[in-house]
């Protein structure tokens, strides 16, 4: 029997029960649509992360103070007090792959301006920090190295802090209070958005000269982190190695002992972020494919009903010369037509849902042709897999019994 005739018969059989066929297809539609939309969300997120990381500058190396192991209790990064200002100067002096470096120390504080107040993160650093991180200023002029040396009470505020304390008014020149000390706002940073791998708001921050922070706010002498700029992107791995060797030497860490600091270059972080978003994509896709399997079971169910309903038809076809293969092929193709139509509608639904997510939630959603192709193939496979058993059942019917079925 030729394919065209089989397809026509399949189409008629499905058209005969429009509501039933539609509801059966719905399972596949939702499954395929969900896979496409979820993979789109995952890949969109992954791309956004990569773009953000690229925007941070690819030759940046982060050095953070290390973790402490106190009687089995490990306290996370940024806890040791061994990372010092002198370490930073040594890096710039002794590591050929390092171009420049900026120190960082931090505390949290309640910031007060007039009647408003805001709890935020206060970072102490030097002006190179903004250069290394490629962070530009929206307004005003940042503090200088001279201000750092003088431990001046000057502040550069992030966009979130500006919105919360100043609203629409101009913050530059205003005086805010950090832990009861007055600081003059000299500059506002451009918004940077959420950080790539932590999801933190990077704009919810105030920068002050590191000397001011250490002497007047915390009283510490050690650094939380050092931001390093390597001479080139390729040099960032070399810089990482040189810094590790230098710090182990300076901190007198014997071979075999753990580092009391952490060095990461952005390529690593990018890879990490990529990995985690890939895992997320996979997770979303596998949850979505569960509904595709459920859709397949729906097809199988309805095909079994159809085989029973059409037992007599099968008997007639066999009596006039249809072979088992003819009958099996007919029901199999019917199931595949059902699932492929569901797949096609599901692709439209998935693309539509992706566009809706982009518009409503503002997420970057990447519609991948690969996901569409895979979804289409998968829906055909679902039809074949779940259509096989009912088709086999139909083909195995005894023509005599089938002819007398009421």
């Amino acid at each position: 029997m030729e394919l065209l005739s089989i397809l026509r018969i399949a189409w008629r059989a499905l058209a005969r029960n429009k509501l039933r066929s539609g509801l059966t297809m719905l399972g596949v539609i939702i499954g395929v649509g969900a896979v496409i939309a979820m993979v789109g969300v995952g890949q969109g997120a992954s791309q956004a992360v990569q773009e953000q990381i690229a925007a941070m500058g690819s030759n940046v190396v982060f050095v953070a103070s290390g973790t402490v192991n106190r009687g089995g209790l490990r306290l996370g990064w940024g806890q040791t007090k061994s990372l010092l200002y002198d370490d930073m100067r040594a890096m710039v002096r002794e590591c050929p792959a390092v171009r420049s470096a900026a120190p960082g120390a931090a505390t949290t504080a309640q910031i007060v301006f007039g009647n408003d107040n805001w709890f935020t993160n206060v970072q102490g650093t030097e002006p190179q920090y903004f250069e290394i991180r490629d962070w530009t200023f929206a307004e005003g002029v940042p503090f200088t190295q001279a201000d750092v040396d003088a431990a001046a009470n000057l502040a550069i505020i992030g966009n979130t802090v500006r919105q919360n304390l100043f609203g629409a008014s101009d913050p530059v020149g205003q005086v805010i209070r950090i832990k009861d000390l007055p600081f003059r706002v000299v500059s506002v940073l451009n918004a940077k958005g959420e950080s790539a791998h932590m999801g933190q708001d990077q704009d919810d921050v105030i920068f002050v000269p590191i000397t001011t922070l250490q002497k007047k706010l915390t009283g510490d002498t050690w650094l939380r982190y050092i931001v390093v700029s390597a001479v080139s992107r390729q040099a960032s791995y070399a810089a990482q190695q040189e810094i590790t060797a230098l710090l182990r030497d300076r901190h007198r860490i014997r071979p075999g002992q753990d580092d009391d600091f952490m060095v990461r270059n952005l390529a690593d972080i990018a890879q990490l972020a990529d990995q985690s978003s890939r895992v997320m994509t996979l997770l979303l896709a596998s949850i979505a494919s569960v509904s595709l399997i459920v859709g397949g079971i729906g097809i199988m169910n309805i095909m079994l009903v159809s085989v029973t309903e059409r037992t007599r038809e099968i008997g007639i076809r066999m009596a006039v010369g249809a072979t088992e293969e003819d009958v099996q092929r007919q029901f199999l193709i019917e199931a595949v037509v059902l699932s492929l139509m569901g797949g096609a509608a599901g692709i439209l639904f998935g693309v539509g849902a992706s566009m809706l997510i982009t518009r409503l939630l503002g997420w970057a959603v990447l519609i991948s042709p690969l996901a569409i192709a895979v979804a289409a193939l998968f829906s055909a496979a679902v039809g074949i897999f779940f259509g096989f058993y009912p088709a086999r059942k139909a083909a195995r019917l005894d023509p005599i019994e089938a002819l007398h079925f009421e």
Partner: protein
Amino acid sequence: MSTLTQAASHADASSATPELIRVEDVHKYYELGETRVHALRGVSVAISRGEFVAIMGASGSGKSTFMNLLGCLDRPSSGRYLLEGTDVSQLEKKALAAIRNRKLGFVFQGFNLLSRTTALENVELPTLYAQLNKEERLQRAREALRAVGLEDRMDHFPSQLSGGQQQRVAIARALVNRPSILLADEPTGNLDSRTSVEIMDVFQKLNDQGLTIVLVTHEPDISRFAKRSLHFRDGKIRRDEAVADRPRAAEALKAMPRVED
């Protein structure tokens, strides 16, 4: 009825042996759980080309089982069944399907037409399994419908046709692949007496043109229109006789009152 002549002459040309069917000592058992049903207990019969045979018998006599074997819908438990000189008793299912398609035409009591499918498409059905191209399929189906006098009902659905018309569609379907034998299983069982005779008229005319017909019926009035009758009882042929003073259905119809429909 030129098409039917064609069909019959085609059948004649395909074989030189006058003997179309030869059944030798055929037995059929069914296993029903623990019990074994012996449906046919050694049936032997020969049917020649151009015969019109009525198979008679009460229900349970084995006539339906015999018909299923003749129709290649089932295989005998033992014995031989030669169709046009070929032993078909042990053929594969696929080969049996091909024989049903090419050499046999079925007419059933309940018409067994596909509902929501036009008369033309019902008749076309066997040709779908016969590797014919679309044009030839449609041409044959139209000819077969014309032959049973339904050329003006081609696009009607079975629900729009009377019982007699539905059975004519079924006959057209049985003839469309130009078979050697027409097998009819209680073809008048669902029809009133006048329509029954009309169907027998169609059969007689087909037989006149050379088509071999085997008809199962339990109505003696119907079996009289055949040329030969086989009586089954308890899985055996008890009587095999020629029908004496066989009436012509066309004549009988003239004598019957016409029921307005």
